[in-house]
């Protein structure tokens, strides 16, 4: 649909992308210590368990803008029609320091400030493939 790069789910990430396709944001959570991790790794970065058995847990999708940039040149295919677009660095409310990056769908005209509240939104970029983004709350 958009020509943007599509994620190829793997054994770990498949639950995340399945939930995203349903427009549900999930974050990997270590079954040993309960901490969230973005992105999941083979070892939990919090408790350092080598068997974290991450579980993708639905989260609120609410967060605060920590930084942003307006992208005016795309290095990946499929984004040219969207230029310029905004990327936001968002700290989710679920855990201090838990940060995601995505497009801000309000566009480059948004009057952004550090701390602005945002909420997750989803872009359907291919059949059965949705990518998390954000909107000003």
């Amino acid at each position: 649909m958009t020509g943007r790069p599509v994620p190829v789910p793997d054994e770990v990430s498949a639950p995340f992308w399945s939930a995203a396709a349903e427009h549900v944001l999930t974050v990997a959570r270590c079954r040993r210590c309960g901490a969230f991790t973005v992105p999941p790794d083979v070892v939990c970065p919090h408790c350092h368990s080598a068997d974290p058995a991450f579980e993708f847990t639905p989260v609120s999708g609410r967060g605060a803008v920590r930084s942003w940039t307006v992208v005016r040149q795309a290095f990946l295919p499929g984004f040219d029609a969207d230029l310029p677009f905004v990327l936001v660095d968002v700290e989710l409310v679920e855990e201090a320091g838990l940060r995601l990056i995505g497009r801000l769908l309000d566009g480059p005209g948004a009057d952004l400030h550090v701390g602005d509240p945002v909420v997750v939104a989803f872009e359907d970029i291919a059949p059965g493939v949705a990518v998390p983004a954000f909107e000003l709350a």
Partner: protein
Amino acid sequence: MSGRFAAAGKVAIVGHAHSQIRRRADRPLGALAVDTARAAIADAGLRVEQVDGFVSSSLLPSAGGQGAEDGVSIVSSAWLAQHLGVNPGYVAGFEGIGQITGSVGIAVNAIAGGAADYVLLHRALHNPAGAYHANPMREVRGVQQWTAPQGFFGPLAMIALPFTEYLHRFGARRESMAAVVVEARKNGARVPWSFWRDRPLTTEEYLDAPSLFDPVCRYDCDIPVDGVAAFVLTSAERAKDLPHRPVYVAGYAAGTPTRRRLPLHWPLDDILDGGAHTARRLWEHAGITAADVDLPQVYDGFSLFVWLWLEVLGGAPLRRGRRHRQRSPGRHPRAVGRRRAGQWAHARHPADARVLPATGAPGRGPPARQRDDRGRVPFLAALRRRGGLQRRTHLRVVL
């Protein structure tokens, strides 16, 4: 690693060479590397067969996804040794962020530990055809699946986010950064072999440049080039018999991020905290403080890094952004007031000037033409004037 470096002052740089720096060289990168290595070894007064250690970092820092071809797009130490016709006993490559610094640490350790008598340290950088960071990927596997489909990709996006954070947190403006970039280019324009020779930049040109990833414009970025630089290191004892006055290594330091993030996600606090930790290690390792450094030559592959390095190397935190507002635009307080930023070398080519004194070659002293308007001379000569370092020249690698 803790405390003072046990081999401080026991390892020295005794020779160096660099190739021409071109957007695209008319010869293969491997050929440039072989020639440059031979020149550095000759500069040290040595023969190729005497070099028994080879160290480098061969990373091609492009996001374009090009396959690395040794001798063409990268040059590893093993490739270089083989093509020089030698079979060294010690070959090592640094992996990670901080390619030059990491290589220096490995080379110094090889000498200090007796693994090699003479180490050739090199860095070879290639500018592939096409846009440097453009990547035609249609499917994303592995760790990039968490960022690329969302549109977060490449080093410009990486640096733009902490740049925005910095400007808003500290009240700095792009006008302030213009002074850094213009000053760096002024110095680069003075270097005979610089890509920017006789091509200074004005504040207006910087401020008028189209934004790429706000607030980053092209002049905030280094420029991809073909080029090679090489250094020869040996023990302080062996250095006595070589032609150049040695540049002794007082210490080095490195650090890695403590928090796992998305690929290329470098929040400002992560950089500053990691940098401050690295700086503390460096001062302890080298046995000096910021007050001892006459000329910092910090990594400026993105202009923001100049501010960030000054933040963490300066000792006293500069995170009180009011300093930016209190001073005239473009005058970073510590850089101008106490650190002689005007003497920085322009180090756009990662393989060379960052570990060179602004004057060019180790041990040869600064030519008069590179004195500043007040007749001051940078780094090496300045250090020689200091009481505690009489007749010894120390290279402080603070990247």
